[in-house]
Structure formats: C-alpha cells, structure tokens
C-alpha cells in the first residue's frame, strides 16, 4: 500500500529584493521552487536541482547559495536577492549586467542570472582579485556556451571600474 502522508505547510517571512513578503509553503519545497512557483522569479533557473550547476543561485544575506538545495522554510527572516532585484527603480541595469552584455558574456542565457549574482557577491567585497582568484570564486557555476572567457572579462572589467582603477593589460 502507498504510504499515507499529510502535506505540511509553514508560513515563511522574508525579504525578497527589498520587500517584506510572506508565504505559506510546503515544508519539502526548495527555495528554488518557492521563488519560481510562488513569486514567479523566473531568473532562478533549474539546471540540475542538486547543487551542481549554479543556475539557481541567489544571494541570501549577501552570500551566494544554490537555492535548489536550500529549503524554502530556511528563508525565514532572511534577505534574499534574485536577479530581478538588480534593476533600478526605472529599469536601469546595474553595471555588472551591462558588462555581461558589452563583453558578449551571454549566449543561451540560462546560466547568466546565477553568474551575475555571484559576480555581485564578489564585487560587493570591494576587493581586488587576481584572474586566478576570480576563476575560483566563479567556479561554482557551469556554462556550456561561453568557455567562461567573456564572463571573466565582464566581472574583471566591472571590478576595476568599481575600484576606480585601470584594468591591467
């Protein structure tokens, strides 16, 4: 016989892209599921759902997480940012989004939101990183289109711009 089970729900209160929100969620749901299904944050992509590809990356209290292996209920009290939160009030793009466009770092676009959010995490440290360090910091994301080359250029360019330094050759 099939197991009898009763669905359990819990109300989660958190801040999503600057707004306080609450939702009653299935306690088994992942943060990816909640953000995509309940809030229609379609920038949160599903590539593997087991924390291998990085497509579902979001910032939780400023730190990058694979939202597919983060339970929705753990969002309680957290500040969560998705790519949707990066646009300015009048739809202005952030410098890092523009850099991804300018450096041709976008192809199919499926890994892009996750990469940009990790780039935000890196840039918000205000530190200067070497290429090797940037590669390591970005290595939680898989991309099959770009060979990562232009993504590195976009992040590096934005880093130096924010630091007010010329990019070394």
């Amino acid at each position: 016989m099939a197991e009898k089970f009763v669905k359990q729900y819990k109300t989660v209160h958190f801040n999503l892209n600057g707004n306080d929100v609450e939702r009653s969620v299935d306690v088994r749901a992942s943060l990816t599921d909640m953000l995509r299904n309940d809030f229609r944050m379609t920038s949160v992509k599903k590539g593997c759902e087991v924390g291998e590809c990085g497509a579902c990356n979001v910032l939780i209290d400023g730190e990058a997480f694979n939202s597919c292996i983060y339970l929705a209920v753990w969002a309680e009290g957290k500040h969560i940012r998705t790519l949707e939160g990066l646009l300015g009030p009048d739809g202005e793009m952030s410098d890092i989004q523009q850099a991804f466009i300018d450096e041709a770092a976008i192809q199919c676009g499926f890994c892009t939101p996750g990469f940009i959010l990790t780039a935000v995490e890196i840039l918000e440290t205000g530190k200067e990183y070497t290429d090797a360090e940037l590669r390591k910091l970005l290595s939680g994301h898989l991309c099959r289109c770009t060979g990562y080359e232009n993504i590195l250029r976009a992040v590096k360019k934005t880093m130096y711009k924010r630091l007010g330094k010329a990019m070394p050759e």
Partner: protein
Amino acid sequence: MPKNVGKSVARVDAFEKATGRAKYMDDLCDRSALIVKILHSTIAHGYVKSVDTAEAETIPGVVKVLTCFDVPDIKFPTAGHPWSMDPHHQDVADRMLLNRHVRYYGDEVAVVIAEDEVAAAQGVRALKVEYEELPFVLDPQKSMEEGVPQIHEDCPHNVLAHTDIRRGDYQKAIQEPGLIRVEGWYDTPTVQHCHIENHGCFAYEEAGRVVVVSSTQIPHIVRRVVGQALGISWGKVRLLKPYIGGGFGNKQDALYEPLCAWCSTQVGGRLVKLECSREETFVSNRVRHAIRTHIISWLRPDGTFVARKFEAFSNQGAYASHGHGVVAKGMGAFPQLYPCDNLECDAYSVFTNTPASGAMRGYGIPQAMFAGESHIDDVCRALNMDPVAFRRKNLMPMGYVDGFSKNELYADTFNQCMNKGMETIDFVRKYKEYQNQTGPVRRGVGVAVFWYNTAVWPIALESSSCRMVLNQDGSLQFQTGETEIGQGCDTAYSQMVADAVGIPFEDVHVISTQDTDITPYGTGAYASRQTYIGGFSIMQTAKALRERILNIAHEQTRMPVSNLDLVDGQIIRISDGRVLKSLGDLAMESLYSMEHSQHITAETTAQIKTNAYSFGCSFAEVEVDIPMCKVKLVNMVNVHDCGTLINPALAEAQVHGGMSMAIGFGLSEQLLFDEKTGKPLNNNLLDYKLSTFLDHPDLQAEFVENAEPTSPYGTKALGEPPACSGAPAIRNAIAQATGVYVRRIPITPHVLYAEFRKAGLIED
C-alpha cells in the same frame, strides 16, 4: 556598403537574458500543469513482461499511469533531418512512445501523470516491472560478432548501416617498395551535450489540436515527428519554441515532445509538463557517438601519401536517431582533408545497448579529427617530419574541388590559419624549445586542423523561408524557421535585415519564438547552417520587400522606381539625393489610404543548392606533470576561416564555447557504464567532468576572413567548427612534451598512468 553586418553589435536578446526576463519553456508553463514522470528501464536489454500499476494508482495526486502496453502501435523516427520524399532516404523509424522491447538501461517503460512532482515521483517508484532479460552488449565491435543478440529485428549483426569510399587501387598501391606504414586505432568517448537547461516540454489540446511548447532546436521537424508518432495529421500539431538554454545537437532530435503530447491526449487534453532531470538528460536524451577509428597510411620517405585505409566503428547506441549520418560525415572528411589517390574507407554504425547517439556539435567531425589529426602526428613521428611542414605539404590545396558537394577551397586558408595560430602562440620558438626535454614536468605544443561542411546540401534539402512585416513607423518584424539557441543568429539576422532592407538596426525586430502556426517553414538550428542558409532567405525577402516599398513610393511620389532608393529608413530620389519621405510616412499612408490600402509584407523561400567548406586549426600548449600523470592546458588558440564575420564579438564568443567543449572532450569528459549491468555510472554534473572555470587557460580566438563566394553575406559555418580540432591539438602537445602518443580521449590521469608506465616514464 554594409552598415551593420561586420559590426559587434550587442545581442538583440541581451537585455532580456541579463535581467532574467527571457522566458524559457518552464517559465511559460502555467503552474496548473499536470506533471509527467517517466519510469526508465533498469536493465540494459530485454522485454517488459508486465507493469503492475495498482499501487501507483492509489497514491494521492496520481491522475493516470500509462505503460508500454498502452501506446499506439506506431514506430517513429526522431532525427532532426528534413523529411525526405525518397523512402530510402528517410530516417529510421525504430522506437515507440514507450517500449516493451527495452534496449538500454534508461529506456522508457511507463509514465505517471500526477498533480505535482512529488506524487508523480512516488507513482514512478511504486510501479513494479517484470522483465525478461536478454544478454546485452556495450561495445560496437563486439556487437557485430556472431551470437550477439539482435537489438533491432531487421538489423543483422546489429549494423545499422555500412558505407564505403574507394578510390584508386589501395591493394596494388601498397606494393610499392620502400613505403613507410603507419597504423593506429583511435578511440573517442561517449559524451553529452550538457546544455544547462535540460530538455523539457509541455502540451495541451486546443480546438481539436495538440499544442506543444518545447525546448527544441527544430520546431517544424518536431511538429512532423509528433504527428507521425501519434498517428495524426501534421496540421493537427502546433509546436512552439521559446528561448532555449542551449542545445548543441541534443535538441536537434524529437526528444520527449511526442510522449508529452500523447500524455495530454490521454488526460482529455489537459496541460501536462514533462521536464527531464539532469540524470535523465545524460542517459535518455542523446549522446555523442563514441567512435573507434582504424587508420593505416602508406607513405614515401619524402612524406607523400601513397595509399590510406580508414575504418570507423561508431557506437550508435540503442536507437537510430541521426543514424549513420554522423560517422559518414566523419569519413567524408578523410579523403578531402589530405587528398590521396588510393583509398579504402569503411564506416559502420552499430547498435549497442547504450543511450542513443545523435547529433552533437561537430556531427562526427570532432571524432574524425581526433583520429585523423592524431594520426598525422603519428606519421610525422615515423617520418621524423615537422608537423606543420607535413600539413602544409599534404593538406587540401587551394583550388581543390570536391566532386560530390562541388565545394571549392577558394583561398590558401590552411596556411593562413596556421600562420596566424603559430604567430599567436609563438609556435616555432616553443616547438624548438620543448624538443628533447627531460625531468618530471615538461611542456609541449601541438597543432591540429579541421574540415567542416556548412549545412547539409546535397545530402538533404536546404531551404529557408523568411517573412517581413512593415509597421506604421517604418520598423519591421521578421521571422525565419531557423532558431536562436544561444549562438546569436537572431542578432546576426537582424544585422543582415537592416542592411538588406535599408533601415536602421533599431527598426528591426526579430520574432525569436518559432510557432509552426505562424513562422514560415524552416528546418531549424543544425549543421552550422543558420547564418549561411538564413542569409539567402533574408536577402531574397528583403529584396521582395524593397520592391514593394519602392513601388508604393512610386505610387505616392510619382517618381519612377528606377530613381528611388531606400536608405536608412528614408525614401531617397537617387538623382539628387533628396529625401522624399520617411519609410514610416510611406507605411502610414499605404496602410490608411482611402484609395489603395495595403499592408506591406514579403515572404519568400530560398532553396540553397550550394554548400561551403569551413576550415581552421587549433594550437595547444600543455604542461605535463609526469609523476602525477596530470596535464595542465597552458594556452590555447583557435583560428577560423568562416568567411566574412557578421558580428566579430559574437563570433569570438562562439569560438570560446567550442574550444571549451573540445577541452572537455580531450581531457575530462566521458559517460561511463557498468560492464556488468550496462548502468550509467556518472550521469550527473558532479561525476561527469564538464570543464569548469578552473580548467581553462585564457582562450584565444582568431579569424582569417576569406569571403565565401556562394553566400550573399560571404559567410559560412562557425557554430560547430570551434569544437572540432581542439582535442587532437592537446593530444599532439602532450606527445611533444612526453614522447607518448596517446590514442584515446579523454586523456585523464588514469589513461596517462598506463601510458607512462608502458613508456617507462614512471615506475610503480
């Protein structure tokens, strides 16, 4: 003078993708969809005796369970090829929606349709399948042996197809005294496309028809296959293709669209969604053919080829999919790349009990180039010749014409590309410096070239259709059946349209989504055909639209058509250059005229009966840690002649991605199977070693631009070529560094450990 073609304009879909607004399949699916999950076979070969569905049907939320005993008795083909009116040239129809005869570990046995994912997954787990097991085989050459069970009833010795090429008299030619014989067997692995968006689709019925929205490269073809698989007329199917998260050939096949569409028809036309997990994508979609190639070359001591033998055994897996086309394309490169008077070439596509092999970026050429270009360095070693000098002497010369495709090598492309690559990587100096090294850590540089045919003529139909519709403000929408899959064709097309019509780039609006109800017929994204083939229908349709516009301009201005031009969105009188009116004013007047109202559109089909060679090369520099059996790729350069660049920045980005795929092919990627059960061992992104950010050096892409005379825009293939020559260049660099000429990829530490021990470079 082109104003937009040749410029690195930003992608037309960049804003959408940089902000997460671009809608992919799952973003478009209503949350009310029923969820379809598949039960895959847990044996590699056998028959399903029964499926006990009783327990699954009691699970709350399970709506319906369907098994291989329920499906229509129809076998259908899946390959993303244009339909052929010649029955002998049609794709092999060898699978059903769900299969009683299961032919690989992962075949489709049953589905559970449920209200949510959890119920669907629980339903699948509760199904009990009874199998009658048969012996299975994983290796294509073993599969051809006597006594091996037939995987498909009509294929003795499991050979799907065997084709050959004969030229001159090989047996006689090899009798020449003093020849040097070089022989090798070369193995390439089963790899997967690993687009970051898994394949998925959703389906529902509307007005007596079935609508499918799918992550596919080939909407018009999939529409036909859904019709075939369900046994309904093709007009009853509507297929939509939104943005897709990569394809690389996997989605150049009908994957689960037919099954998903059928599931909808079994629940009264309700909305159903079928999304592959990553684990399913690896095994139950398509993979790249693993090919074992045997090459024997007979040469004079001066480095002249006298006779060559080529045999390739291609692992087709369990179903025909793209069939023999892949290894046949690889074999087709052999006599052309290094012309030789005496040849014996044979290619076999052999069924095994492994995942079905289909199209993957390069379509047999990465495999053929690994074998062929590794072999060239083996020859150079035997003859003690410089690998670049040998290639210069023997590669297809300028002016070469292929008898079958009528392709011509119009320029001294190979030398130009190699020169540029050598300069970029500083090859001559490094090659000399890295000769005769000793010590545990050594460096090497290697080269490999490639051959790639653009598009599929004359093997199959090449046509493209385009529609343009002018708006009141003088801007236009256009659409083609050729699909944006990440490679950037929407942007390249928009550049072409702006120039061909004579309007500003901002006034060109591409309709990215293909909808078979609306989009003119086109076969989709494959064979690196998009810019080449699409260019014809865009040029032709733009011409037709301009003709209409100028005729209307004549009506409105009474100036002769011959004295009118459309430049930058303005109607110009040629004789004095005066702007008579804007295209927007013309369109307004035309649309709302009380005398002669007409909306301004054009639509044409271009059939293309040419094909174009695309060439290039890779240079790799490696550092090999011999005791650790580890290879570090230090430097890599690809040089391409894909004709005139339409968008240099996007072209460069395309090359980076192909190089990355080649690096994985050469050094790390391989889908493995348990010899005892046929079960896949590493069908996930943790255990399957896709290249990460840390596995690449800086990738350098260079171009040689020889305008292709057969293309209206001077362009030719660039989508697949970057993936073709990287792996053998890495292999040849390792050979220079260590003196060990590895003949299998991926060149992992496991492979090198055995090779280095054999060569006496390391001890236990």
